[in-house]
């Protein structure tokens, strides 16, 4: 856009201003959405561990959309079962999230779900779809309880919440 003082500003000049500069803002894909990973570690949790010692509570600082929940264990008893149950208050949709699977020696990664609202069958209601959107609304209290039938120590249960969030204004 090259203008000489005194020359008329024509529509093409304004087009440049709008389509080029504002387009830079429109293409600001860093703004939405962002992602985040929250990692939780529970060492030496075994069958019979007092619930308060295998419960994690946290409050969400901003609206979040859960992408997936990754659960992996280290050095558990062979053929044990480990379950991670996540619930929240704040009137969130399609709760709770429960991930469970067979764990054992070595590192076991439980199967993960991508919460993208994919239906199992066309006629399914979203509410009954295992991959239905999960949201944490800002200020929700999220409670995560881990249960295992493993009795082996030392051991590790590692839970990763992967979520999408939007930049906050405040």
């Amino acid at each position, binding site marked *: 856009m090259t203008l000489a003082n005194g020359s008329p500003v024509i529509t093409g000049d304004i087009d440049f201003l709008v389509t080029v500069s504002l387009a830079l803002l429109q293409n600001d894909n860093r703004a939405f959405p962002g992602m985040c*990973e929250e990692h939780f570690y529970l060492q030496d949790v075994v069958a019979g561990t007092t619930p308060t010692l295998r419960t994690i509570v*946290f409050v969400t600082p901003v609206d979040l959309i859960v992408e997936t929940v990754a659960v992996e264990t280290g050095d558990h008893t062979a053929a044990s079962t480990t379950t991670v149950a996540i619930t929240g208050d704040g009137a969130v949709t399609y709760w709770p999230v429960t991930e469970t699977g067979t764990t054992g020696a070595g590192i076991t990664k439980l199967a*993960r779900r991508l919460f993208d609202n994919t239906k199992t069958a066309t006629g399914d209601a979203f509410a009954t779809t295992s991959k239905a959107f999960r949201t944490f609304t800002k200020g929700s209290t999220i409670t995560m309880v881990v249960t295992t039938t493993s009795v082996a120590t030392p051991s590790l249960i590692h839970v990763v919440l992967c979520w999408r969030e939007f930049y906050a204004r405040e």
Partner: protein
Amino acid sequence: MKVLTEQPVRFATGELLPPEDLNRVSIYAQDVVADVGSRRWAKAPMLLPYVETVGTPYTQATAAEVRTYRYRCPVISVIERGFLNANMTSSVAPATWAITRTTGGTTPTGATVPWLTTRGAQLLTSAGVPSVSSDGLVSALTDTVSNINVDRVLLEADTEYQILLAGSTFSASRADVTMHVATDRWGMAAAPAFAPALFAGGSAPNATTVAANSAALQTEALKFSANAALTPIFFVRHGLLAATSANVRTFTIPRMANTRGRGTIVRIYLWAVMAGAAAAGAVTATLRDSGGATLNTITATVTGLTFQSADSGVISRSLTGSVSAATTTDDYTILLANSSATNAVKVYGIAWVSWI
């Protein structure tokens, strides 16, 4: 937040524009910059487990460094809120948490002293019966002690802070401190702002001013592509020997498909607390790709030391995978290791991620 309702001026090619129409375009662009610019905060909770190993409570006799978590962020960050969820099986006097600068021991702006405490904390029994504690708090294993601090604490860039659990007599079988950490895209400096020169009604054509406005808008707009706020990935291992099974000191970092989210690990801080003056060796955190190949190794040499920290410096490791995070094959991992003969009582770190 201003709701943008007006559209830019619609006109036909060849039309000459009056000053008022030029102003409307400029003001619209100004509002867009302000609107997008105000979306600046990335927020994440970061949970610090003060008692990680079940059955090994923290008391006042626990070494101070073990009762401490250190924090560092490469950019200015804000702790917006702090939450305590604990189980205090014995407490004659309140247990407290305080935030101070490692160097100098001063309290950062906005932090109360103490920052969190069991004094006046809420006790929630397993039956859901709440009560409020006074000095001294004993809770059964089935109970939860909670406390909240909503004061904003401003933390300086690349400055180390300590969050110390202290008290005269206490025993905590678990104590989780959750911080709401916020970082902004422009390091707390002013967000991009477009302030166009406006025309008065009836003013003469002034292409120079229009050109200057356009250049200024482009300058501000370009700032948006340059910055992304950071979120933390926290990792911790209580008890780390050379012989500790790799299966309990390897931590997965799921990666996202590029259609879902793109992140880059830009910095990793590592801290190692040893059981005593360590024998020769080092504590390391190794970032590995999905094939197990080493990407970065952060080394804290602990020879003769009870405590050591390490900093990766500026790094750039993409967390963008070819498949979604629901697929495990693309995971990165962090592997902790201790080559000394001395137990690392606690090894922890923070990996800072820039997301787009």
